[in-house]
């Protein structure tokens, strides 16, 4: 935002105006809003509804949750900040952007958190709860003063808002309603459709008493009126009505509904952040579709149950995050060895170990591909948008069945909790799996009747007369008979691997975003798509010869990469996982630990692929990526 509105001075903002004031209406192609509160005060709900209503009204939207790991951490501490960032635009919005332009903060400490993370634009408008400045507790007043001093280093424009006082006129405990008041403020500022918001509130509280809905709506309208009476600016982000039907959901909802659309019949899971919410959505609706969510006793049992159901001919998946993926490793190896189709969704979070449970990272790539001891060829794919979270479930199911192997889907916390509108999928019966064929097995068919050219074999399931065999994790021949001889093991390994080679040849070469040749090619995967392409777009506008490439299939890798890479003077991955910076102490070209995709690409293409990676526990910002591009341009690059 370049033109900053002049906010009302606190004194006049606090007093109701006698007349409607002159208002500046800022028309902008995009704007980024944050709502932050203590956990339990509902800023997330406020942000989610604001994001959804914006999408429903035709704006491009991308939301990101700001979330502490605990349920009720201490109030009024920077590290407790909880809320949502919502970036809205006239066109499609593909990432969370760089800085927030407008913030609603329920206290100064959570605001401080965002300030310290450099999340706020220097001229951000900040609507802040003003009760703390005059609080009875001198420590709180002091904290407010100190915070304001620190925040004074930026040129934020503060609008004090008596949220507590306003809410007390409606409810006894404003902690349980301030969020709807804040939503009212935002609704007025951005001219959101109140009726649509009420519809979303009704959906949100559909399991609660009607009185709760009424109270929330009263607070919403009160926020709207307060803004109308006191603010001298509104923001208009023009909308483009889509002529295609659109839906808006987060990546975990997309995985859940996409799983149903893929014909899944069982989801076996164990609670783990940030994957669990997918099973919440499924638990709500799956049984209507004839499906079951089985909450297993642990991560290992969850994948075991899915594997058992799949062995029995049903279509099953399991959903987890990094620590759970580690626990499931042995079963994943068993599924690969027994050639039992299985879909494993890993919603990545920061690692290693418990790491950053609620925050995004792309640190599981190599574990997903190579995590199993022994040679365990299988497919790893990564959706890059909410829409792809939906669609990839059908792809994953089909590939798992066609190849009789495991497909690991790598989503992440950014996709899981972020919301983006996308064209409404049009499910069809063809998306579903065929019911298991229980016809007698033809004479002589062996349970692993590998086609020596393609490595695949027809699947036999229990219930088929004449097909009886014992699947085993031991090395086995075509009859599934245990064999320890060199030829049996070599052959089994070769057949399981060959399927992947055949599959790789069926994949389409990836499409370069930008010119097919140039100085720098940025390669990414997963949820960073939007931020990378935005940064590359800005770089190209500056005249830099930069293009980008985004991979969906990571194992096997999409074809033609080496050839594409050779058309650029430099190739660099951008990832949210750890790598040594080249200038770090003791780091040399020989010992440098690189980003995970970079490892893979170097090994597979023999191209000297560089990387720029960060592990901030938040999505990458396009501005950061642009800076990395500037810093990484090869010497002598044209401008």
């Amino acid at each position: 935002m370049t033109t900053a509105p002049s906010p009302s001075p606190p004194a006049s903002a606090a007093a109701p105006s006698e007349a409607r004031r002159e208002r500046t209406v800022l028309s902008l192609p995009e704007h980024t809003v944050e709502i932050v509160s203590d956990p339990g005060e509902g800023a997330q709900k406020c942000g989610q509804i604001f994001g959804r209503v914006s999408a429903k009204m035709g704006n491009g939207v991308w939301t990101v949750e700001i979330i502490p790991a605990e349920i009720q951490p201490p109030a009024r501490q920077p590290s407790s900040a909880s809320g949502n960032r919502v970036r809205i635009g006239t066109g499609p919005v593909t990432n969370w952007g760089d800085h927030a332009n407008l913030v609603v903060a329920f206290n100064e400490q959570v605001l401080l958190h965002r300030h310290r993370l450099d999340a706020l634009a220097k001229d951000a408008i900040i609507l802040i709860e003003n009760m703390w400045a005059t609080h009875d507790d001198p420590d709180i007043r002091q904290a407010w003063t100190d915070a304001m001093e620190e925040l004074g280093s930026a040129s934020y424009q503060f609008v004090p808002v008596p949220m507590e006082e306003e809410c007390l006129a409606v409810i006894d405990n404003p902690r349980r309603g301030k969020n709807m008041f804040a939503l009212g403020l935002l609704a007025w500022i951005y001219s959101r459709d109140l009726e649509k918001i009420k519809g979303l509130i009704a959906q949100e509280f559909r399991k609660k008493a009607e009185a709760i809905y009424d109270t929330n709506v009263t607070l919403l309208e009160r926020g709207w009126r307060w803004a109308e009476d006191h603010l001298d600016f509104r923001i208009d982000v023009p909308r483009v009505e889509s002529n295609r039907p659109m839906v808006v959901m987060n990546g975990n909802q997309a995985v859940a509904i996409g799983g149903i659309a893929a014909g899944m019949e069982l989801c076996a899971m164990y609670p783990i952040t940030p994957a669990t919410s997918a099973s919440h959505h499924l638990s709500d609706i799956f049984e209507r579709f004839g499906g079951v969510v089985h909450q297993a006793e642990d991560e290992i049992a969850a994948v075991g149950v899915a594997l058992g159901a799949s062995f029995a001919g049903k279509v099953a998946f399991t959903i987890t995050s990094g620590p759970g993926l580690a626990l499931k490793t042995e079963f994943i190896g068993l599924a690969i060895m027994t050639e039992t189709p299985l879909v494993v969704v890993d919603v990545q979070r920061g690692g290693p170990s418990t790491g950053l449970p609620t925050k995004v990272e792309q640190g599981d790539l190599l574990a997903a591909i190579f995590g199993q001891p022994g040679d365990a060829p299988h497919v790893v794919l990564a959706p890059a948008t909410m829409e792809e979270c939906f669609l990839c479930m059908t792809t994953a199911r089909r590939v798992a069945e066609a190849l009789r192997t495991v497909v690991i889907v790598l989503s992440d916390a950014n996709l899981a909790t972020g919301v983006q509108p996308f064209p409404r999928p049009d499910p069809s019966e063809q998306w579903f799996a065929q019911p298991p064929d229980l016809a007698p097995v033809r004479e002589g068919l062996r349970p692993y009747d590998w086609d020596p050219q393609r490595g695949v074999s027809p699947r036999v399931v229990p219930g088929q007369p004449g097909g009886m065999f014992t699947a085993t994790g031991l090395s086995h021949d075509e009859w599934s008979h245990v064999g320890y001889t060199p030829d049996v093991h070599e052959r089994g390994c070769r057949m399981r691997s060959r399927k992947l080679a055949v599959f790789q040849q069926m994949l389409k070469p990836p499409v370069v975003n930008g010119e097919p040749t140039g100085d720098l090619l940025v390669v990414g995967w997963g949820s960073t798509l939007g931020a990378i392409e935005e940064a590359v777009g800005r770089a190209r506008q500056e005249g830099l010869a930069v293009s980008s490439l985004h991979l969906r299939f990571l194992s096997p890798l999409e074809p033609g990469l080496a050839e594409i890479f050779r058309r650029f003077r430099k190739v660099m991955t951008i990832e949210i996982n750890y790598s040594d910076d080249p200038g770090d102490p003791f780091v040399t070209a020989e010992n440098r630990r690189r980003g995970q995709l970079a490892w893979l690409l170097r090994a597979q293409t023999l191209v000297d692929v560089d990387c720029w990676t960060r592990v901030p526990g938040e999505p990458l910002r396009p501005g950061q990526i642009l800076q990395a591009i500037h810093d990484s341009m090869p010497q002598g690059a044209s401008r």
Partner: protein
Amino acid sequence: MTDLSCSLLSAAPDDEEREWTLADYEAAAARWCPGCGDHAILTGVERLLEAEQLPPEQTVFVSGIGCASRFPHYLHTYGFHGIHGRALPIATGIKLRRPELHVFVVMGDGDCCSIGAGHWIHAVRYNLDIVALLLDNGVYGLTKNQTSPTSPKGIPSNTQPRGAILPPINPIAATLGVTNASFVAQTGDWLPAHLYATLQAAFHHHGLAFVRVLQRCPQYTPAIYDVAMRDPDLVELLVHPNGVVVPELDRLFKHKRPHDPADLDAARHLAEPDGKIRLGVFYRNETCPVYEETRAVAARSASEKVALLGAELDRYAV
């Protein structure tokens, strides 16, 4: 385990004619050591399959890893020889979505009581309609003689050469302590008639039938059950019309205790160690909820699912 597929079976004209013989259930020759108790258990199971005329294609044996877990390879039914300790989750997945299949689980003591102990507790609580056999020889055999959680205290092994340090887990008492336990029995591999009668009772139980089979390992733990084999006075049979009654054993065993398997308190008391090896049905309750029935859902046709998906997506419509 109730025979749910009877109607399916009789509906299939081919199978109506077919009579399954012992040979139909036999697969590869067993590779257990001579004298291993597993041979007798395999024979008992084959007899059961034949007596119940279970179609091999409707029957699945699931196992973990260990000597006992080779079991499915020696049967000509469907089988899943999985990973150590994890037979029960695989069986859960099979039974949950294909309840018409007859599912048997075969575990060793390392499988069930050590690495897979979490699954054991929870499978008992799920109470799927399956038969779960614990082939308990009190030792890790396949890995060559390490102390197991059921090794009697003081028995030496390669990992505890001065004798097992801890008192053993009591699988019967532990199972009886789990909520929703519905069938708990103990038998011995050296008493084929008792073994068979117990398997039969387990199969006909509706719910998870947990059977601990005391199983001799002539290689590493010959001592632990030999005493009881040689001295029937150390054994006490639990007898009751709702348990197992084996008249041919009347002559051999003088200690017989009438025990109503409906009595959980008495069962827990009898499971406590007091020098006696008790064989029979400790507990049986047909009224416990069975997981695959609790979780049964109506199947939907593809066209119904497409319509429902459309309605679901409309909830997210912009």
